[in-house]
């Protein structure tokens, strides 16, 4: 079981030093998948033969000195909304359950070029719409710490896979918290970079102005290393940003000295579980002891972020998901009368309840007569929220926050009341609205034995600050190991 407890960087070092072969590493993960995934359901697709074939090729390139990077030979899991040529990409939806993409996403190609071995595609909420991984067409994923509980979502499969050792690290995507919240629920580390940092080419779009791909791993160094590998300007993504510096691992100094950390009072009021609150504030104290300057401040407009987000995200989703019409790819209904009836029946049978709910809301807020009152209004509120964060970042380098008001709920508790579920996104959603980077780092366990994560939020292009804070904090504690990995 030793391999499964290694971080990506340390496994990469052992592979380079020939202490572990790529095949051994791949087999260890495949063995854990075989053992655990009937229960966990972290994966939608696993292709052992293909993974072992890749392992062999990567090993040859390492031996020939062609692959020398830190991730060469390390097995990875990819969320099933990122295209990987040569297999299925389903977005956890019936409408794409037989879809074989004709090309791969840029992030995946970059990982492959760095010598990653792709184990398979991970489960998620259908089209990334959900906070629990229960809206998947392929059934829910279970939390490796306690299988009665959800792993969070929408990147629940990726987070559960990393927590359980089924994969050494994973890619997720984050539109409203979908990397950071499940990372918190599963006791792993996940970062959503500044909007435009990782190419969205080949990521099936949900809310295009909000979506970002990011790494999920065991620790901050892994996240920084993977981000360094997948980030970069891509002419195939029109919102890709040319950054001056992609050297994220440079930020891992081990010191928090001089970092100005702000804690928004509004994030610590009603609705926050007392155990989560204590754990987050303990993390703040630990950073203070490391030399950070920590103080409280007022962050206005917090309660308006969720309504603004759901209008914008659903509007974009309703537009993005128009392409699923049963014509060129994906599911097509069996019986229909004419073109429009085919569209409607295909979509009604192909999409699940949560996806339909969001398409309907999105179509409504974009319809003539309601566009100004809802959609434009939400975009104006977004501008106000952005201004509030801009002002906060004049005084602080990092905003410290919970990732979720509670630890992971039990399966079946969340879907009956959608608005209640949406309220759980309170601490993650503004980060997407404002294009900011955010990282979740494990910070403790509650009395039920479920993980708690602390979130560090930075200004745009300041991943260095949150990586520095996260890494310095990580050095102050011993990480808990998931029971399935012991």
């Amino acid at each position, binding site marked *: 079981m030793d391999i499964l407890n290694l971080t990506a960087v340390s496994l990469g070092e052992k592979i380079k030093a020939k202490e572990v072969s790529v095949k051994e590493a791949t087999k260890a993960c495949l063995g854990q998948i075989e053992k655990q995934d009937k229960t966990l359901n972290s994966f939608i697709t696993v292709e052992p033969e293909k993974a072992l074939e890749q392992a062999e090729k990567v090993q040859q390139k390492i031996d020939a000195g062609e692959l020398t990077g830190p991730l060469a030979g390390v097995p990875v899991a990819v969320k099933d909304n990122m295209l990987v040529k040569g297999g299925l990409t389903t977005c956890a939806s019936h409408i794409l359950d037989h879809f074989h993409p004709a090309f791969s996403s840029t992030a995946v190609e970059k990982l492959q070029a760095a010598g990653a071995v792709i184990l398979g595609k991970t489960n998620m909420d259908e089209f990334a719409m959900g906070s629990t991984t229960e809206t998947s067409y392929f059934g829910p994923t279970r939390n490796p710490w306690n299988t009665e509980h959800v792993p969070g979502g929408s990147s629940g499969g990726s987070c559960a896979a990393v927590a359980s050792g089924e994969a050494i690290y994973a890619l997720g995507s984050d539109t409203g918290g979908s990397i950071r919240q499940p990372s918190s629920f599963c006791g792993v580390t996940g970062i959503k970079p500044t909007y435009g940092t990782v190419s969205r080419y080949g990521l099936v779009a949900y809310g295009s102005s909000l979506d970002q791909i990011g790494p999920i791993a065991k620790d901050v160094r892994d996240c920084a290393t993977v981000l360094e590998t997948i980030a970069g300007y891509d002419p195939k993504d029109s919102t890709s*940003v040319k950054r001056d510096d992609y050297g994220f691992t440079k930020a891992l100094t081990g010191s928090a000295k001089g970092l100005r950390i702000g804690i928004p009072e509004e994030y610590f009021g009603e609705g926050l579980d007392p155990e989560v609150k204590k754990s987050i504030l303990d993390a703040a104290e630990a950073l203070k002891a490391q030399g950070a300057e920590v103080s409280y401040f007022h962050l206005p407009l917090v309660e308006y972020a969720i309504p603004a987000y759901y209008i914008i995200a659903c509007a974009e989703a309703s537009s993005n998901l128009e392409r699923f019409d049963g014509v060129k790819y994906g599911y097509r209904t069996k019986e229909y009368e004419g073109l429009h009836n085919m569209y409607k029946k295909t979509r009604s049978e192909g999409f699940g309840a949560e996806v339909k709910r969001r*398409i309907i809301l999105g179509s409504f807020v974009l319809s003539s007569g309601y566009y100004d009152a809802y959609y434009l209004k939400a975009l104006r509120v977004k501008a106000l929220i952005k201004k509030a964060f801009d002002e906060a970042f004049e005084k602080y380098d990092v905003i410290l926050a919970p990732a979720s008001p509670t630890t992971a709920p039990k399966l079946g508790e969340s879907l009956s009341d*959608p608005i209640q579920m949406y309220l759980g996104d309170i601490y993650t959603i503004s980060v997407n609205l404002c294009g900011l980077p955010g990282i979740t780092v494990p910070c403790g366990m509650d009395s039920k034995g479920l993980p708690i994560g602390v979130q560090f939020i930075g200004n745009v292009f300041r991943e260095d600050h949150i990586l520095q804070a996260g890494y310095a904090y990580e050095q102050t504690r011993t990480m808990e190991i998931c029971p399935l990995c012991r």
Partner: protein
Amino acid sequence: MANVISDETMEYVGILAKLELTGEEKENARKDLEKMLDYVDKLNELDVSGVEPMSHIFPVNNVFREDEVTNGDGSKDTMANAPAQKDNQFIVPKTIG
């Protein structure tokens, strides 16, 4: 104020969303939409007059490039996903009368 969505509006949204909902589904969708609108109406508490709508965080401009083919012929892979095809073309229901 509680939002009430009329049958006509539900019908119209169904056309825009290209979704065909059964009786019970439609009633649930209406209730969900009404509840969600009641909730997002919270934004009306804010005075946003004079605030420009912000669609993107960073300025978004048209990105131009020369119209040169950089990828190969992907038609085989593309057609392999077609729900119905004939002679390398997608089969669709009759679209004109």
